[in-house]
């Protein structure tokens, strides 16, 4: 067993874990954060995507011990003060989910994509979601939802920045 300490959704967590414990099971079973799902065993489907130190990662392919010291955000940590995150709003508004099983991972992958400053053209969003599989929606509404959320998230700050750049840079 090994002692780890990490911050999950803003809360510091400490635990004794077996080295082989995958981060996703640490989140789901040790912390009870069952929003992050497991859909495959080959790092293919992306259902387990979370943010780790500001980057989207597949939490089924990270050991909990590797996350020692990290900051992790899961789907449960997105809404703040009872307000849905723009991505959550956009997924609902655009019918970007059906069964909802891939959705937490899809939203976190979308978050990673938007925060990386990626282009939000159709083809770029689609390519940016290459690591996330959905069997229900056919993806079109997911792409729309991410584009719409990006529009909101990347709006120029209201004050003092005369020439805020729309969209990200790489």
């Amino acid at each position, binding site marked *: 067993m090994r002692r780890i300490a990490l911050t999950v959704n803003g809360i510091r967590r400490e635990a004794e874990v*077996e080295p082989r414990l995958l981060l996703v099971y640490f989140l789901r079973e040790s912390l009870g954060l069952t929003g992050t799902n497991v859909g495959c065993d080959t790092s293919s489907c992306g259902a387990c995507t979370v943010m780790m130190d500001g980057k989207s990662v597949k939490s089924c392919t990270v050991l909990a011990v590797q996350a020692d010291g990290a900051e992790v955000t899961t789907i449960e940590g997105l809404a703040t003060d009872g307000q849905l995150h723009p991505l959550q709003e956009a997924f609902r508004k655009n019918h970007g989910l059906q069964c909802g099983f891939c959705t937490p991972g899809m939203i976190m992958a979308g978050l990673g994509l938007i925060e990386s400053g990626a282009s939000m053209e159709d083809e770029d969003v689609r390519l940016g979601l290459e690591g996330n599989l959905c*069997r229900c929606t056919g993806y079109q*509404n997911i792409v729309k939802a991410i584009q719409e959320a990006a529009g909101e998230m990347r709006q120029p700050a209201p004050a003092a920045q005369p020439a805020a750049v729309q969209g990200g840079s790489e």
Partner: protein
Amino acid sequence: MTQVAEPEAKRWVGGGILRKEDPELITGQGRFVDDIALPGMLWLAFVRSPVASATIASIDTSAAKELPGVQAVLTGQELADDWALPLPCAWPIGNRTNFEDPDDPRTPDHWPVVKDRVRYMGEIVAVVVADSREHAADAIEAVDVDYDELPVVTDMMEALEEGSPVLHDDLGSNEAYTWGFTNGDVDRVFAEAPVVVKERYYNQRLIPNAIEPRGVVVQPIPAQGEFTIWSATQIPHILKVLLALTLDINEAKIRVVAPDVGGGFGSKLNVYAEEAICLAVAKRLGQPVKWTEERSENYLATIHGRDVIQDMEVAATEEGKTLGFRVKLYADFGAYMQLVTPGIPILGAWLYHGVYDAQAYGFEATGVFTNKVPTDAYRGAGRPEATYAVERIMDTLARRVGKDPAEIREMNFIPPFDEAREVASGLSFDSGNYHATLEKAKQLAGYDEVRREQQANDGRRDGKLLGVGLSTYIEMCGLAPSQTLAALKYGAGGWEAATIRCHPTGKVTVITGTSPHGQGHVTTWSQLAADALGVEPDDVEVLHGDTAVSALGMDSYGSRSASVGGAALYKAAEKIRAKARAIAAHELEVAEEDLEWKDGKFQVTGAPDRAKTIPEVAFTAWTAHALPAEIEPGLEATAVWDPPNFTFPSGAHICVVEVDPETGSTRIDKYVAVDDCGTVINPMIVDGQVMGGIAQGIAEALYEEALYDENGTLLTGNMSTYRVPSAAELPGYVLDRKVTPSTTNPIGVKGIGEAGTIASPPAVLNAVADALRYVGVEFIDKPASAERVWRAIQQAQGQAPPDRAPSGGGTGAASMTPEEEGGVA
């Protein structure tokens, strides 16, 4: 259409309200089976056979039992007395012609854990019970099984040959059944027709891939002999009945819950070994148990779909007027019959003439056992296969008689109709306007422009081959009526139930027997109830998927939920309104006939300000202070709807592709779908179903295929080798619709859950085939993977110089074998 005395105002039906299901699912508060953890819960894991055919010489579980945390290791022999019956097959078809009574249905015994002989890779040979997921996983590696390997047969045509290894010795052969019927003088029509076109198609084996793998949790209350079973299932009601029978447990002591279920597509429409085993182990040990399927395990443990060879024929005049359709199909069932395995080909049996007129019709199916995972319902189940064959052969016929694929369709369409009409197979279609959907689709796709571009540039666009394909599909939904199902030897009814409970506070609970897993029934049923009762959708709570809450139900599959379950809800609302009318009349001191249901309330005719709403009546009915003499307190009604017929959604899909002639890669340039699913309750949800369905069909057309080698090893054993496409591979979709309300049910809905998957594979394949004409390819089958396309081009170019003349059938001649590479079929 069924006459309804008081059609409710459509305030909510037809509107795109946002889904009520979403808030929990977008915040991580969804509750799937794997999210359930119970105190003292034990984990199950299964030892699965690595070989496809063997007798079990011995199993040594002693080492596994010594490992930390292991509570029990159980073999098939040890569990043999836990089963009252084998795993159920609810649709034993049997050998039949023209609906005579079947002889022996030839359903082989299928035990949850193998007793002595393994018949496919992945079959369960032992069960491990441990205190953690990790310990269970460790223990299965320590179980030592000695297999005496037996010959393997994976090819269904070889399996039918004399001398093939036989899977089930007591059956004597691998032929599960041969079932067929004819309508009209099909032999004469084919003998006399000037043009007969014949092709062989292979609907490859597919793996459903609901993104949530399956899972089961069982909580026993040993002192009461009670069990609560949570399962990632589409069919909690059916599962309850059949598990009670399989384990001989009092059905009233079993509660099945389908919590949030992460997609099904038919793969969770079953009674699985793991469900029976979890229940048996919980019963034995008196402790809660859990099993969560791994994805690569899912590929071996959960049913596969399709795997059907079709010899398809159409008879026509010189001009291409269709005279008859005839098909002989072979369906690979895998090693056993799962819940409705034998019925899958039958679900398409009446549809091999599509939306086209003909005088004669013939259908025959042979089911075959092979050493592979059992096949069963996969999105569309029987109808995608039928649609694929019909829509492909119509293109071949078009080329044979020198007509455009659009023209050959238009000249053969059944004319528009809005009353039920008998068609060539003998079925009665409910309504349809096939010209209208095709016309609209052609406009949206720029069909004529694409044809002109092809002609102008010899089928090229920027070095790629340009192709356009059509699919003017028909399908049938809402498995019904129960008597018809009886004639087809289906083991259950086709009805559905709904209960409406109007609370004194004005809120409404709807309890449905359907069991959604992504389709949005909570939202859609709320819209139906809101209109029917004059309340807001947010005032309606929809409960489902728990047999303790929803006592009556037949669950969700076959695009039946809206057309059968929605109709049941409509009927329950009629009962509510009938009772509420009596109470309202009593309160308003008028005769019932003096009330009209308008704007969501009962108004006194001529005095609309004197009115009672359903919530007001519900309060009156609850206090019971002032009810008419014959009226019971409370405002609640249950209706069970048994539909008089199937429904028949239809539509036109058009796909434009660009094929790289060097690598064989296909890129979809444009995809247009114009569907007619009858009345639309929630357009946003309907469009979502269409898009998801098309994506799954494109996956079938271009990407996915479960491949076995000759030893019965699944070669595409996980998600990195079985190619479920992502957003990066799929196109955007252009959608539109036409509405011809169904005459089968009072709300006019037809069903839309499977249409996209049924329509799209032939649209894509016809487009690829159209493009490949320009390099002389005469035939290409699914999946049109880059390698398959490249091979087809190689083959065409290895022969005579590319021939642009009409290709395809010839008179009854061209019989193409399914792809020879890859080790299947």
